[in-house]
């Protein structure tokens, strides 16, 4: 249970960063931290104590295997996360060129 709690604390650390940081790059980093905590959570729910890699051995039917599906999902999610992070960074670079700052308080054209 402790591991799950630590994983959730990591999520909260990322969330805290997203709502309190004012630097655009730090917001992007905080989002990545949140993302990683969820990947960790997925890896944890597939873990079975004493399990081995899920390559089925017919000679030993009683053997315990870990669940391979969360691992496949994490791999997919990592690729998606890479795409979103790259997209976010590209936008941040463009914002820096237009506004000349990373400070979110000075980027306020849109209101209402």
């Amino acid at each position, binding site marked *: 249970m402790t591991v799950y709690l630590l994983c959730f604390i990591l999520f909260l650390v990322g969330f805290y960063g997203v709502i309190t940081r004012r630097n655009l790059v730090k917001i992007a980093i905080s989002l990545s931290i949140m993302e990683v905590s969820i990947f960790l959570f997925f890896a944890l729910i597939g873990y079975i104590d004493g399990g081995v890699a899920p390559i089925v051995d017919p000679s030993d039917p009683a053997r315990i295997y870990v669940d391979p599906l969360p691992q496949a999902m994490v791999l997919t999610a990592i690729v998606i996360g890479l795409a979103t992070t790259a997209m976010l960074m590209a936008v941040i670079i463009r914002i820096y060129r*237009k506004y000349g700052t990373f400070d979110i308080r000075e980027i306020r054209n*849109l209101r209402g």
Partner: protein
Amino acid sequence: MNPLIPLFIAIPLAGAFLIMILGKFFMDMNRYFASMILLILLIFSIFSLATTGTDISVYKVGGWEPVNKIPIGIYMVMDGLTVIVLCIINVVGFMSVFYSISYIKRYTSENYFYALFCLMIAGMNGVVLSGDLFNIFVFLEISVIAAYALVAFGVEKNELEATFKYQVLGGLASFLILFGIGFIYWKAKTLNIADIREVFSNGYDKRYYVLVQVLILAGFGLKAAIIPFHAWLPDAHSSAPSPISAMLSGVLIKAVGIYVIIRLFFNMFDITEGTAILITSMGALSMVIGVFLAIGQWDIKRLLAYHSISQMGYVVLSTGIGMILISRGIRLEVAALAIAGGLFHLVNHAMFKGLLFLNAGAIEYKTGTRDLKEMGGLSGIMPWTSSTSFVASMSISGIPPFNGFFSKLIIIIAAILGRFYFLALLAVIVSIITLASFLKFQRYAFYNTKEKKKTEKNDVPFPMVFSMVMMSILCVLLSLLIFPGIRDAVLKPAVDILMDPSKYASQIIGI
């Protein structure tokens, strides 16, 4: 069994890559190529709507057959609700991409625009067709990443700020959804929506179930911009190029937000009274607050964006009323009426809000401004834009004989029959305020003129006029759905799927 299911995703995906490759060699071809792709999808979706009826067809990706009646592959499911949403995606998509042929000429690198557009369509079709939770997440990310890029397509200050907000909040939403999926997988050990229902029907931990529901509702609520989660919508929808605003407001918030909420909360989770009341109150809040935020706006596209929040409130409210009645087990025919009204309004909103954003784009194209105070007297100069936007404004504010009137009427009647008098009153009041807001739009944009300007006709190019006229015709034609014969053919299969929660699961498990 519908053989077209994989094509809805494969054609736009392949098209996106072909556009990028062909765009290197034939610069002018890509815009017609994208329209062709969307036209094919449009024909396919109409064909599916005509043939599906009440039966559910399933496509198993990779041909993985179920073992002991437990699905192990990824399922693509097409049923009555799916085809309706597929139709609005591809109809509005075709109209927007045809409109872009003229509109997008003022931006550079057009082929990126069309490639991203096709990717967004592929993602949305995937979300709607998917019968697997994680697959929904993957397609959702495909469509929203394309949407992030398309919102920023102008790469000016406002666009970049809007897309940054959209990306941060969209990212948070994706994490909440992923967390929810993780929790579901932890207990259910399956990702198939039908199978999850079967597993949870054997009993579950109540508090755990509520946690999952809250995570999923918050995640998809952020994508759908229901009121506590609406902060990104006005910025993103007003900064995007107009055809994209039409897609985002008309389709994206429905396909990846409302549709998934309806699908999961009716067909996957057990309907409980608590969540039903939560969803209904969120819908009522969006309806009221959205319209009050809209009324002070002078930027046309911001005004329309706030009205999107408000009109989506109607859809959520009426499906929520249906959920409350189903959970109490009373007056089921009223519940069916409420759900039908919600779905009807969903379809109507896609048409008139798409049309309104296309009108706003046409006005911006000609006058170069989005501020209502700087316009006036456009009705003489732009007769097509003026008349189509009149149709759309009357539709959204619920004036007969346009489609918005009938769907709002059904919603209000269902609310009264279900004894939710206060909600019915709210719906009427919001409709009146919407009318006031759109009369302001009509007056300031098209009529209010002091000096007699030159009144020679100078309307937008043919593709833009064609899309706007087609959508306004659809706005009028869709009011035919009120007649029982047509309503039974189109809306009833969808309502049946939602009304009997176990039907979806049992039919898919049985295949």
